[in-house]
């Protein structure tokens, strides 16, 4: 088990060196993909390594010469890493219009550390998925296919794209299986390890990740399981970034077991497959318009995040929800009061923890979580 985990942790403990080392060894291009909606499959089909950009574990310093402190940690971190020269191993970067802040990052990157390849996709909100929306989105994805193909010097054919989608679908289905195991056997793995498994999937070649995952799942399915005592909680939110592992440890140390989540570096990342058809770009377009899990950034009205959470909590028989809100993330900020109201109406206990780039006061968070745990009652 430890051996398998080492394979994942190599990437999450120092993604910069691990990716650079991979690049060196494989002599392939690395493409940074801004979270949360861009199909990495296209870069993979171009024979490159797509990596989802991440929040660094280092204090923001130079970044503050470019971005105000009251912007979200995702953007602050990417800018800080870029201006420090830490992202030089990325041959290309793909950005998108997803929220107000994400649409300004590429300007700062271009100004200070322009990558060899850069693309910007105008991904629309999903609402009613009108023909105009669908066709425009399709055009954006076709554009990425074309420009990445030109950058790589080889056309990205439908066959190549389908092959990448197949590999990515496999990864997603394995991750979903891992989550199923956790739902049935709460606490089977520490939450920090689950996070590392998912996060590493965003950083390493999917084929390699699939192999490690298969080995991990087989162990988990065959090893014995000692039920863990604790209150079952659902983790919600945390758009774009991964939460601090220390925070996850704290939740568990206080006697709560995360049994499921809809965080980005979690279920949200692998929830939806793209179909294998003779029109792979069409399939990726369709996937963009899938309405669940509800994504507050995506502009959706026909489904409701609060109700979705109530259903999930009931199905899991969970005791409460820990909302992890990426600090200064407007899509989540705007939605949160409505989620809170629905949960309160349904009698589901909930606590809010804000995730900054660096959590300044773990003591403050601990007090909050402690009272929440007391509210949930004994083990």
């Amino acid at each position, binding site marked *: 088990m430890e051996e398998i985990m080492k394979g994942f942790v190599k990437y999450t403990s120092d993604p910069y060196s691990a990716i650079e080392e991979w690049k060196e060894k494989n002599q392939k291009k690395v493409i940074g993909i801004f979270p949360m909606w861009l199909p990495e499959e296209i870069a993979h089909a171009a024979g490159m390594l797509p990596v989802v950009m991440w929040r660094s574990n280092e204090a923001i310093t130079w970044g503050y*010469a*470019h*971005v*105000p402190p*009251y*912007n979200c940690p995702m*953007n602050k971190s990417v800018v800080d890493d870029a201006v420090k020269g830490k992202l030089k191993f990325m041959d290309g970067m793909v950005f998108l*219009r*997803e*929220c*107000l*802040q994400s*649409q*300004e*990052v*590429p*300007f*700062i990157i*271009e*100004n*200070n550390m322009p990558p060899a390849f850069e693309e*910007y996709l*105008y991904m*629309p*909100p999903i*609402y*009613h998925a*009108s*023909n*105009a*929306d669908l066709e*425009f989105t399709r*055009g954006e994805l076709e554009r990425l296919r074309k420009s990445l193909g030109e950058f790589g010097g080889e056309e990205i054919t439908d066959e190549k794209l389908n092959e990448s989608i197949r590999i990515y679908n496999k990864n997603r289905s394995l991750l979903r299986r891992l989550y199923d195991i956790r739902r049935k056997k709460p606490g089977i793995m520490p939450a920090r390890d689950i996070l590392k498994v998912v996060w590493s999937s965003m950083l390493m070649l999917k084929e390699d990740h699939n192999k490690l995952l298969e080995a991990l799942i087989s162990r988990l399915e065959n090893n014995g399981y000692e039920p863990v005592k604790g209150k079952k909680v659902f983790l919600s939110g945390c758009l774009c970034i991964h939460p601090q592992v220390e925070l996850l440890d704290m939740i568990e140390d206080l006697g709560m077991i995360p049994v499921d989540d809809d965080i980005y570096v979690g279920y949200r990342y692998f929830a939806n497959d793209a179909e294998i058809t003779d029109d792979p770009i069409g399939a990726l377009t369709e996937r963009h318009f899938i309405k669940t899990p509800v994504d*507050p*950034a995506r*502009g*959706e*009205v026909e489904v*409701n995040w609060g109700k979705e959470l109530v259903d999930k909590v009931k199905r899991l028989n969970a005791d409460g929800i820990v909302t992890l809100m990426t*600090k*200064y993330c*407007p*899509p989540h*900020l*705007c*939605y*949160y*009061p*409505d989620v*809170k*109201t629905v949960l309160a109406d349904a009698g589901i206990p909930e606590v809010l923890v804000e995730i900054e780039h660096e959590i300044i006061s773990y003591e403050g968070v601990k007090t909050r979580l402690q009272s929440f745990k007391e509210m949930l009652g004994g083990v």
Partner: protein
Amino acid sequence: MGVEYKVNRLRATGNIRPLVDKHWGDLRAAKERGEKVAWASGPSFMFPYSMGMKCHFMAGYASYAGGIGAADELLRLAETTGDLPETCSYHRLHMGLVEAIKKGVPIKEQAILPLPDLLIAGRYCTEQSHYSESFYRRMGLRIAPLELPFVFNKEDRPRIREFVYRQIVENVIPNLEDVCEKPFDYDRLSEILSVLKKTATLRNECWKFLATKPATWTLWDYAVSMAPVIYMMGDPAGIPFYEDLLKELKERHEKGIPALAPEGEKYRIYWDGWIPWAFLGKFMRKFTPHGAVCLCGRYPWEMFPHPELIDPEHPLDTVVDWVYGEETGLACHMAPKGSIEMIGELIEEYSIDGLVMFSSKSCRMWNQSHLDQIDALDKKYGIPGVVIEADMIDPEMVQDSQIDTRLQALFETIDGRRRR
């Protein structure tokens, strides 16, 4: 002895308040008169106007609520339903409004609006759609979405223009036709644009008096006069308002009366970002004693800066080209790359000495790129700039000391460069 600067107040701008009050008053009374009501965000309100609907405009309402002193109570009301202070203050303001309407909470009467028959979720800023989504969740209001992306690279403009045009024809107009139970009135849209063309042409004449040295009026005077070229578009009352304003500016100029007494300004300032609607007096008092006047900005220059391109014969194209046209390219200027070009033009046209980037702590529309913009513009034009942090309507986010220190630093930098 230092010069004691004083603002020479304009008479004509005092006439705007009754016009604006009437506009919002008409909207308040619309339902009683059996008229349909829309609420719109982003540049989309002209579509409901064309159908004879009364229409709220998100930013316009926020500025109005700020101006009449209703913002604070609405913001506090929003807190009671769980809105966090980092959330866009315009969003919070509207959540407060919905709460007041829903629960009948007594607030300033002028700030109360009727609930709409249709929400047009113009997603110029992404939060603008989030606020419509919140209304939908809270009140089940019908939404017509309209994605209006900023144009990051100029070469992307034509295909985005086409996308926006299609959404209007395929989503927005059919929704309006359905709600109003009649075909879309293209003729009325043409009439609105004809009035707007006259109003904006007069307004452009007035702009020339911001370029005079010394300046004849200020950005704050223009800011309070913007309604006729934005959410009051099509209202003929805007024409005599601007005629009167132009007359006064000409007279002032002929008589040599500057915006700042006794002899005009010492520093000519570019202002980036929103207008601090609820704190105009406060900000004026921060600039005036230094002999500084704000003269132009990206946002106030959004309102049909090229009236010569308004073509009432082609109403839909005119509206779409306002934002996505090749010459106007508003959506290019809103994105940081295109803004450099636009701010550069304003620097030259209005002989700017320094840049003030107004960074709203709760609105992330422009603030992320401010420091890089200052850097790029300083390199190109040799003009220094500072960022000041505040908010348009939330008093909790306005801290005087930080603003004063940064403005002081800007003026000292300009002085230092002048001595070189």
